[in-house]
């Protein structure tokens, strides 16, 4: 379905840290809880090195800048303020001209196409005030459908070199695309780039679909579908959009599925009578194991990144709260104790935090807490926020926000784990239940 990068070549890896630059070390933006002054960078349009590559160069330059600016950590020096023009990728950089416009980082690049139509992009990242290169130049290649991915690859390199963080621009999000009024809403599984580009639909809208979740390698998606008339967990191959029902207990609804970190096990809920509990299924043997055994609602389970523990929600105390238990089931420890109800817990990829939805005093929040429940912080507030999902690297959370009233609709938003930089992710129609996939 989707063209993958046919080739991905790094001309040279960036091995040793950059040679000592200025007295205060290499250019680096420190991400802390404090207020950040966005780092100013310049990204002059990449040089088109073959005839007809101008439009590609323009698009790639634009996507790179948008990725960086979208983080809230960087500020682009407008092109009309540039003094220097970069018309030759190999020519020496006029650092004085970039210092004069206060660009601290400079990204130069070139785009060409080869006879088979493949697009090749090269780039270099410069520390303007030190007058040195940051890391080594790199080159990526893809066919024409992968042009935006090439740009994301470059931006990922720039981002990780300047922040020291794991990048996330070359990643995809699976979500539920929504159309129609609230009482007859059509829902389809859809997949898109992290920034909302390249939306593709994976189901046809004939059945209600809910809460897709990526496999750790991004090749499969678990979701809940009403295709058989009742909610059942299905697994879909992203490459072919073909799906099959998981062999969970027949005639019993199953939902809230998630993969284990190794992709071999699915944890999910089933409902017998009034009782909803959490089960696991081995995808190789089909063996089912019951993990909780309380008469209350236990659902929304998710693994810790090392696979040793499961966080889930339960109303065993009388209201929805968060609990952690060993991956094999057994004794669970309650971790949420604040005012209100807590649900949809998701362990951060770094392992140190849990994101959740909190419902309190008629408002919904996305929040994070340490895995022992301490240091709870609310990142958002609205009529209805839910379904947090972590970006690779764990610095950003995407979630769904539903607006109020008869015309209410759902959209996707992202927010930094610091609570800053809330922004809507543009989608062609309504959208809910995002699940952020791995770095590709």
């Amino acid at each position, binding site marked *: 379905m989707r063209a993958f990068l046919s080739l991905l070549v790094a001309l040279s890896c960036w091995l040793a840290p950059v040679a000592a630059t200025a007295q205060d070390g290499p250019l680096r933006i420190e991400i802390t809880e404090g207020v950040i002054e966005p780092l100013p960078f310049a990204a002059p349009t990449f040089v088109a090195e073959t005839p007809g590559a101008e439009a590609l160069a323009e698009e790639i330059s634009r996507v790179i800048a948008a990725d960086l600016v979208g983080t809230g950590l960087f500020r682009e020096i407008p092109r009309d303020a540039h003094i220097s023009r970069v018309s030759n990728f190999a020519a020496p950089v006029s650092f004085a001209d970039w210092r004069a416009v206060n660009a601290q980082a400079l990204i130069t690049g070139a785009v060409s196409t080869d006879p088979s139509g493949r697009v090749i992009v090269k780039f270099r990242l410069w520390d303007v005030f030190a007058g040195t290169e940051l890391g080594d130049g790199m080159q990526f290649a893809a066919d024409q459908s992968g042009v935006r991915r090439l740009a994301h690859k470059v931006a990922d390199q720039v981002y990780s070199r300047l922040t020291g963080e794991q990048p996330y621009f070359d990643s995809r999000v699976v979500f539920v695309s929504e159309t129609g*009024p*609230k*009482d*007859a*809403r*059509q*829902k389809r599984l859809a997949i898109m780039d992290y920034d909302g580009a390249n939306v593709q639909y994976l189901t046809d*809208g*004939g*059945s*209600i679909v*809910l*809460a897709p979740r990526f496999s750790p390698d991004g090749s499969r998606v678990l979701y*809940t579908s*009403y*295709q*058989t*008339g*009742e*909610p059942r967990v299905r697994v879909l191959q992203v490459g072919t959009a073909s799906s099959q029902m998981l062999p969970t207990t027949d*005639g019993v*609804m199953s*939902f*809230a599925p998630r993969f284990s970190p190794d992709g071999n096990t699915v944890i999910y*809920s089933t*409902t017998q*009578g*009034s009782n*909803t509990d959490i089960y696991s299924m081995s995808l190789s043997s089909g063996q089912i194991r019951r993990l909780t055994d309380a008469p209350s*609602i236990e*659902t*929304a389970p998710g693994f810790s990144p090392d696979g040793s523990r499961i966080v889930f*929600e339960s*109303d065993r105390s009388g*209201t*929805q709260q968060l609990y952690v238990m060993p991956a094999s089931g057994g004794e669970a420890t309650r971790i949420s104790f604040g005012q209100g109800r807590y*649900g*949809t817990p998701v362990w951060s990829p770094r392992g140190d935090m849990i994101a959740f*939805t909190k*419902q309190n005093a*008629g408002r919904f929040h996305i929040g994070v807490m340490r895995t022992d429940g301490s240091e709870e912080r609310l990142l958002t507030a609205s*009529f*209805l926020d*839910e*379904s947090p999902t972590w970006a690779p690297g764990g610095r950003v959370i995407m979630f769904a926000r*539903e607006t*109020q*009233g*008869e015309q*209410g609709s759902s959209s996707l938003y992202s927010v930094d784990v610091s609570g800053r930089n809330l922004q809507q992710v543009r989608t062609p129609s309504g959208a*809910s*239940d995002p699940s952020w996939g791995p770095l590709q």
Partner: protein
Amino acid sequence: MKHIHKAIIVVAALGLAACSGPDRFGPGGAGAGGGMGAGAGMGAGGAADPASPAYFQQNVGDRVLFAVDQSSLSPEAQATLDGQVAWLQRNSDYDAVIEGHADEQGTREYNLALGARRANAVMEYLISRGIAENRLRFVSYGKERPVEICSVESCYAKNRRAVTVLAAGSLTS
């Protein structure tokens, strides 16, 4: 009492409108459409015919409502369900699917489980009053299929419901 009766009729009518939703049951579901079709096939009339699904919906009352985050049956709900029991005992050709629903004030998966709890409470009540278990099943729609779309309590109250949807049971099986 008159007011309550009226309210039930209004809600039932809205329920009918909602039943025309395209993917309400999926291919595996029987649903109200099937039940009513079978009724018509038997020569049954509209709501005036006490053996018709329309009568069940409008006069007996096909749904019960719940308090916020609750699945217990109020005395009014039990009275409605007693009526459903009597009707189902008189009309043994029908099976029923109980659909449980939640209002939008809750997270999606919790609401699925909550809708199941409500539907199951109704199913267990019907069984306890003598309806055969094999005539009943339930399904939860969570917050996916509200009948009222405003975002205030007057709408939420109608969305926190369990609806007994007739299916032409032994006629087709």
